[in-house]
């Protein structure tokens, strides 16, 4: 009895506020837009019993999904989100790996402090961290002032409201997610392996390629997914740092809902985004599983 209550409370909460809402999205994605409140149809009417349910089911269709494939805006936005997420993840890896490596090789007594310094930005507001780049990258911003003072440029560079700014924003905000798993993989590594490789005639660089990198593989994979998955549906970064030509699906969904008030299409956009996300999520889980098994 006590056990049933203990399981039941969080269970019912999640069913009511996670599963059911998601089923509603699925249902509305199959509905049509209507000039009514709520602005979609059909409405489920169970007062007529089963026949009401069947009438309701008969009205559902895949029209919105067909619409998404026809209007080039949407598939361009999906493709461009994927491309931005891929590229940004790769840059984050290039930036994050040397930092994680440096941390793992730092003196033992320094490591907790370095770790805290990586985690600290994570506790700071995401919105503020994105906003901090607006003052740096704008036309009269700190970066342009610095570059023109150095005599590198004559006219200010347009960086804010471009995809470059979006990349900078993503790399900056998601860097801790890349550093932490790589650091924890590198920290566990036995350094005597490197000494052995060098004793056997490996150069430092090839010892890195042949020993260190393969041993940190699980950390690299975890870090990449931890950056890639949230980036794909990102809304704040493209809307604050990106320009009108920045196409990202999170932003499209937001605009479809708040500006165009087209709930059925917004729901269909959400359903497809989830379908795209399922693949990296499964791969990520598999990597985590493998790591857990390797650790025993």
């Amino acid at each position, binding site marked *: 009895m006590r056990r049933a209550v203990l399981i039941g409370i969080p269970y019912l909460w999640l069913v009511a506020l996670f599963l059911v809402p998601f089923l509603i*999205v699925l249902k509305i994605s199959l509905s049509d837009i209507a000039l009514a409140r709520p602005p979609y149809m059909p409405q489920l009417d169970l007062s007529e019993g089963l026949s009401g349910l069947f009438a309701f089911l008969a009205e559902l269709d895949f029209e919105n999904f067909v619409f998404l494939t026809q209007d080039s805006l949407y598939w361009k936005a999906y493709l461009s989100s994927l491309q931005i997420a891929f590229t940004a993840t790769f840059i984050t890896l290039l930036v994050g790996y040397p930092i994680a490596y440096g941390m793992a090789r730092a003196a033992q007594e320094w490591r907790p402090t370095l770790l805290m310094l990586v985690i600290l930005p994570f506790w700071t507001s995401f919105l503020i961290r994105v906003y901090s780049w607006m003052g740096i990258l704008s036309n009269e911003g700190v970066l342009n002032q610095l570059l023109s003072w150095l005599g590198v440029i004559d006219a200010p560079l347009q960086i804010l409201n471009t995809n470059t700014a979006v990349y900078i924003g993503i790399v900056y905000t998601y860097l801790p997610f890349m550093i932490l798993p790589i650091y924890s993989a590198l920290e566990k590594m036995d350094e005597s392996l490197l000494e052995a490789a060098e004793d056997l005639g490996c150069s430092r660089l090839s010892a890195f390629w042949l020993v260190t990198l393969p041993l940190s593989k699980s950390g690299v994979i975890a870090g990449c997914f931890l950056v890639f998955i949230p980036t794909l549906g990102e809304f704040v970064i493209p809307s604050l740092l990106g320009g009108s030509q920045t196409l990202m699906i999170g932003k499209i969904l937001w605009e479809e809902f708040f500006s165009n008030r087209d709930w059925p299409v917004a729901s269909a956009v959400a359903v497809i985004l989830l379908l795209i996300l399922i693949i990296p999520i499964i791969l990520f889980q598999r990597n985590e599983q493998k790591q857990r098994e390797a650790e025993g």
Partner: protein
Amino acid sequence: MKRFSWFNATSLTLGFAFLYMPMIILVIYSFNESRLVTVWAGFSTKWYGELFRNAEFLDAAWVTVQVAVLSSTFATVLGTMAAHVLVNAGRFKGRTLFSGMIYAPLVMPEVITGLSLLLLFIGIGLERGIFTVVLAHTTFAMCYVSVVVSSRLVSFDRSLEEAALDLGATPWEAFRLVTLPIIAPAVISGWLLAFTLSLDDLVIASFTTGPGATTLPIKVFSAVRLGVSPEINALSTIMIAIVTVGVVTASLISKRTAVARAREEQAAVRSE
């Protein structure tokens, strides 16, 4: 053999400069006299004054604190229960669905979580306001809490709880007197995580809020959409200061308790 090289020192310096420079610049410009954020016109704290005279920001901050305290507390209770179920309840019908529902919100894009909850609230005719934002935040934060707490529960020795039960404690007493004190650090960090997530959330709150319940991130977002403003810099500086003090204090406390525990364990071993 010394592995710490110039390469490592450089990458650490550049890396941490990259992580901290934007926030340092933000803080510096919050003390700028000029409204033009990019022109330095001398030191001033006037934007802090402006901020505290701005009733809209103060209202939004109050709403945000209410939402964060309520939702993180509910999320901690529900998340701890969920963690307990995941780790200790063994097999039951629908377990796979349950663990799926715990992990899915962690990877769900915020726009989808927000959209789906809003459609639910509209569907059942719930008036939107502070209450609906609390419901939304509790739901996604409880998943984070349960992940944090269950990672601690996994390493918890259940025979302690069983011993308490054998000695006549009720299950609730055993939990409160034995399990809870041991998992308390994880529960507290779960609460802090939930609190921060709620404080920080823009997207889900934007979808689920209603008139009169504008949270601080929503207010900040609509202000910074128009460009950089010194009041927002001042607000950001205050938030950065709070977080820094909090995180540094927490890490000092956890270091001290770790040292104290090590000492106690040594003393215990010696007295045996």
